[in-house]
């Protein structure tokens, strides 16, 4: 056990923590005090539940300090789309720069068949060093070569932090790297920071369908690795005057060894919208009632130069297509303006849009939870407000 749960004298034996414990490790003894069994996993859920603040979790952080000190700097895995780095890569570099606080070197590893469209952009966006792994067989992502290159680079350069996007690529290869190197990996992080005391990476992520936020550390091993949810971190403004080091990795036979082959890649039809790129997102929910009513939102989005999103309820009802879904099981957006129309604001939706600069909401239910966290809320019938709003904006524009 690395740590323990402290039960303070202020415990009244009320039993709330007993009900909250997911592993049934708590009970109340004869003298009305909580007691903890060795089943306790130190998850800390009970700590927040205690109305008397009688519980505290104490972690003992392990790890050989000399061993951990051999690692420094941040490594970002670049993901390529059509010959250029994906937006998520720039977000990771922006976040790495923030974590670096000017002290840690930020390296970017690009694995591709052609790095010509990437290196300069990566440096201008904040990379101090770009490590190129270029081979003709690296045209499409494949688990084993990516794993081999990543583990090689990590063993060679000893970064203390490794970041990859929580995409189908990052979520495929990073768990493999974690097991190959016997170090920890935290999935789908939405917040990262360095603990000023320990210097450890504090990795925060939603769990239980977004109902709780868990902060996770990797205290005994290095590197500390995270996949990061796309659309949450901010890229930095490209600076054309930045310079950086470029390293060309020698590709070995081991790195191209692969028991799987990508036979074919079939791109999705090109007319798909990308709601994560829009400055204004206007989303409809259960209150929209049917697919035709989404035309109202399309009209408004067209006028404002925005795009239309949706809640899971609207998508599940078949009113609008899945690529427009915002939330836990859809996309995360952070536009300048988010307008939620007929959306109650359940936590699963909220985690996908709460980083928007401003959030406006239209809902006829004054008690809808969206009104608890929107910037400005409008209580009223969307079928009156939205058409009138379209007219009003057209009138003002004349």
């Amino acid at each position, binding site marked *: *056990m*690395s740590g323990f749960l402290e039960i303070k004298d202020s415990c009244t034996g009320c039993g709330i923590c007993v009900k909250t414990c*997911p592993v049934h490790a708590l009970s109340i003894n004869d003298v009305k005090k909580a007691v903890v069994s060795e089943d306790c996993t*130190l998850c*800390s859920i009970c700590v*927040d*539940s205690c*109305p008397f603040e009688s519980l505290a*979790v104490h972690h003992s952080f392990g790890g050989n300090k000399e061993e951990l000190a051999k690692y420094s700097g941040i490594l970002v895995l670049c993901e390529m789309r059509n010959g250029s780095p994906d937006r998520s890569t720039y977000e990771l570099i922006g976040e790495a720069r923030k974590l670096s606080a000017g002290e840690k070197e930020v390296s970017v590893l690009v694995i591709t068949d052609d790095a010509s469209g990437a290196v300069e952009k990566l440096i201008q966006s904040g990379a101090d060093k770009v490590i190129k792994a270029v081979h003709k067989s690296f045209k*499409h992502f494949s*688990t*084993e070569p990516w794993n081999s290159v990543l583990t090689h680079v990590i063993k060679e350069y000893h970064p203390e932090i490794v970041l990859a996007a929580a*995409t*189908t*690529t990052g979520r495929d*290869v*990073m*768990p*493999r790297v974690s*097991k*190959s190197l016997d170090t*920890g990996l935290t*999935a*789908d992080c939405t917040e990262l920071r360095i603990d000023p005391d320990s210097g450890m990476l504090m990795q925060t992520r939603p769990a*239980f*369908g977004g*109902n*709780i*936020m*868990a*902060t*996770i550390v*990797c*205290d005994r091993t290095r590197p500390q690795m995270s996949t990061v949810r796309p659309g949450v971190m901010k890229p930095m403004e490209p600076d054309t005057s930045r310079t950086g080091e470029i390293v060309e990795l020698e590709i070995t036979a081991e790195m191209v060894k*692969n*028991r*799987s082959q*990508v*036979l*074919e890649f*079939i791109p*999705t039809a090109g007319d798909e919208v990308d709601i994560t790129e829009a400055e*204004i997102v206007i989303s409809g929910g259960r209150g929209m009632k049917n697919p035709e009513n989404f035309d109202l939102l399309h009209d408004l989005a067209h006028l*404002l130069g925005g795009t239309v999103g949706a809640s899971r309820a609207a998508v599940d009802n078949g009113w609008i297509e899945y690529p427009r879904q915002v939330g836990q099981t859809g996309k995360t957006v952070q536009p300048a*303006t988010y307008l939620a129309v007929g959306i109650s604001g359940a*936590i699963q939706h*909220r985690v996908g849009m709460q980083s928007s600069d401003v*959030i406006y909401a*239209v809902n006829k239910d*004054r008690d809808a939870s969206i*009104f*608890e966290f*929107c910037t*400005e809320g409008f209580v*009223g*019938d969307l079928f009156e*407000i939205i058409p*009138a*709003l379209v007219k009003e904006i057209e009138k*003002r524009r004349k």
Partner: protein
Amino acid sequence: MKFVVAVKQVPDTAEVRIDSERGTLIRDGVPSIMNPFDTYALEEAMKWRDELGGVVTVITMGPPQAESVLKEAISMGADDAILISDRAFAGADTWATSHTLAAAVKELGDVDAVFFGKQAIDGDTAQTGPSVAASLDWPQITFVGKVRQLSQNSITAERYVETGTQVVRSELPVVLTILKDANVPRVPSLRGKMKSRKVQIPVWGLADLALTEDETGLNGSPTKVVVTATPEPRTGGQIHEGSTEELVAKLADLLLGEGSEG
């Protein structure tokens, strides 16, 4: 063919409510279910067993009560099941979980493919499948929307990625993670239900898998949870009520950036 399906018992997150005064999860009365994504993994394994012959063995790592998801799997048509359960396994992160599951797959021996759901709805990490593949040093195909072909020595599957579909062929044995696009899971049959009532499910613990306490559970986990909290409230702003005209005028001001005087 010998197929293994790894399933997980999870709380039904759709039923989890937040106590807004204390800011904690209310778990009382929340039902435990088979992770919904795992039902597609199970169906896919059974579909190919029905075509090629062989057995589907379902495994789960969890507390004794996780046996119920194994019985559910048997009622749906799985051939047998193993509960991987030991006090030492509690508090495992994805590294330690996959280390333990991989040991069970090795113990079973001669397995052709291990099927996982895309991810579990409680942790949402999607890490255990690929990590098991690494432990076994097998190839993996994740986010599988369709298995096109499966034979004694190879598999061809469609992997759904952000920008399209990758068609991947791989050698066996292999680890797969299955999306809900792959199939429609069958419902439990009467015969299956009868079988699941009678079946004795073996329990494998630390000693059965020749593992130590240092490589399993909380001790074997490189990551640990230090804080859990409900998402920070984003302070609610101004709420406007009034006539449609007033509301529209205000909203238009905001959207066009014209300020309240405009």
